[in-house]
């Protein structure tokens, strides 16, 4: 059993005390190369990321859109492995013991490494939680329950198709926060209507005290600001990986990701400020 750090719970407590939503940023580990993505990762907290979602590259990311798929393939092309992804977290932890890191990906690379070996290493490296897209609650015994036994949160996705009958099952073993997928479809799809999502999030709050992060389709500071008025966190991924794809050099990629993070963080921070009249 590994010691539980509760970085995620502490971060959401802090956010609540400050009465603001958090910003969760996603980057693929190793995109476009190991050094650049490590440099970006280390600078994300200062740029305003409250929680870091770090993608574990997989060849067949079925639930992701073209942007994240391309980023995961760039990372693999650059020689990214699970060992190197965990190394990145270790390096971050030497400098930052507060920012929660959530690994996001698919089950197969974890299964091939061996669930116990993976969980032991992830916990030791300083990982706080996991999002594994292709493990619904029906398969909690595979990874969710063992992960929690290792002190790692298991963050689950709820979607517009998760009806009232199914929601309790989805919430049952979810910890850390609940990731509300604001639209059906893959990552990077069209922007959701903030009004509709607000209603859906409120409906979930009736059943759970967990913080709720909202993601899928949020690309701009303006969109982030609207979601941040009611959600506990806003998740941005494809817009950041698009920035990497569009960059002409690794240096520019890192700079672009951090710039966008800063403007998203600014938007999230001002979302609940009272409107002042001039």
């Amino acid at each position, binding site marked *: 059993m590994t010691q539980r750090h509760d970085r995620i719970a502490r971060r959401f407590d802090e956010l609540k005390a400050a009465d603001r939503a958090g910003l969760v940023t996603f980057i693929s580990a190793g995109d476009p190369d190991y050094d650049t993505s490590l440099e970006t990762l280390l600078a994300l907290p200062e740029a305003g990321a409250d929680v870091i979602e770090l993608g574990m590259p997989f060849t067949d990311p079925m639930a992701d859109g073209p942007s994240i798929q391309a980023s995961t393939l760039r990372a693999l092309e650059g020689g990214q492995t699970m060992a190197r992804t965990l190394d990145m977290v270790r390096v971050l932890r030497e400098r930052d013991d507060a920012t929660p890191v959530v690994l996001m990906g698919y089950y197969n690379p974890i299964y091939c490494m061996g669930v116990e070996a993976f969980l032991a290493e992830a916990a030791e490296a300083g990982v706080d939680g996991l999002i594994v897209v292709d493990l619904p609650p*029906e398969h909690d015994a595979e990874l969710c329950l063992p992960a929690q036994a290792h002190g790692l949160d298991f963050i689950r996705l709820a979607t517009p198709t998760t009806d009232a009958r*199914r929601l309790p099952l989805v919430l049952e073993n979810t910890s850390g926060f609940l990731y509300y997928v604001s639209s059906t479809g893959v990552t990077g799809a069209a922007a959701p209507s903030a009004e509709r999502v607000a209603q859906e999030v409120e409906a979930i709050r009736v059943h759970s005290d967990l913080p709720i992060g909202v993601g899928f389709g949020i690309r701009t500071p303006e969109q982030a600001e609207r979601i941040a008025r009611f959600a506990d966190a806003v998740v941005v991924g494809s817009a950041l990986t698009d920035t990497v794809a569009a960059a002409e050099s690794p240096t520019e990629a890192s700079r672009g990701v951090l710039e966008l993070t800063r403007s998203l963080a600014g938007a999230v921070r001002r979302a609940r400020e009272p409107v002042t009249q001039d």
Partner: protein
Amino acid sequence: MGLPHPTAEIAPDADGFFGRFGGRFVAETLMPLILELQEAYESAKQDPDFHAELDALRRDYIGRESPLYLAERLTEALGGARIYLKREDLMHTGAHKINNCIGQVLLARRMGKKRIIAETGAGMHGVATATVAARFGMECIIYMGSTDIDRQQPNVQRMKLLGARVIPVTSGTGTLKDAMNDALRDWVTNVADTFYIIGTVAGPHPYPAMVRDFQSVIGQEVREQLAEKEGRLPDSLVACIGGGSNAMGLFHPFLEDESVRLIGVEAAGEGLDTGKHAASLQGGSPGVLHGNRTFLLQSAEGQITDAHSISAGLDYPGIGPEHAWLHEVGRAEYVAVTDDEALDAFKTLCRLEGIIPALESSHAIAHAIKLAPTLPEDHVMVLNLSGRGDKDMTTVTERLADELAADAPAQ
């Protein structure tokens, strides 16, 4: 004839597992839909009207039952087991694929879905899907790898004539597995009105069991036809395997008959030791992809690698979970046959029986050619001729260009 009676089902368990294989490893967005599909399928199985409609379509639209043909010249040439060919190549659209599509489209209609999606490799599943979508007046979208579109042009044209939209998949490596990824993405995006017709005994539960049940008509007919012709059970059943639906359909009604040898033939491509093959059981390891745990072609890190076969229909890095289980418990034997061996078998069947087989089925024939001479003359072997070879003419004529250019017939 209907579907297998529920009590005859050996597996999967309630969570969709065949031993440790199978399951429902999908994104949360799809789970409610998959559970709804399972409910709809369970209710259809109990509904005599569903069976009656399925039986009528099988008979009058597909052309069932398919003949069980004693291949006398092949048997004589090999000098061993008596070889029967189960003629799925004679069914509507030219392959066994239609058996499954007709069942699933009836379910789609029961569930009130208006839009059909599918993925296809060689195009046979795409053609069968486009066919049933046309028959029931539904919108149809087919995802197909860009490489496969190039090598299977006749099937692409057929799908278009049948009213389907064929979407080239260039993401990833542009092959069948990527087409399946894109079909799953479409499904996640359009869950409300879309039914995904998976073409093989893979994917999340209930697909592996459902596709198997729809294909089991093959084995059930073999049972009855052989009882009439030989008065007994077969000694061996041989079928090719990509995902494994024609093999599962042939094997399943015989799973409990221990005396029947079940032999699945995978594609060894350029050879199992070259890394260029599609033999998931013999050259792969257990993993999780496309909604199920099964044997996969993958790196030690769990990254999926490309499959290779002369036959686009076998070119998939996974295999149905029930096969993975039958392999693990030793109930079925799995062997592999190379591109060259399959091509030789293709020529042999053309010349000896006047039947141009699909390159997929040619893998099964190639193994029968190896095995039959070692067996006694009273051994009865049934080989599933899963499809016809028209679609493969481009591939075959390229490979046999020199022989076909000569004045004399190809040897």
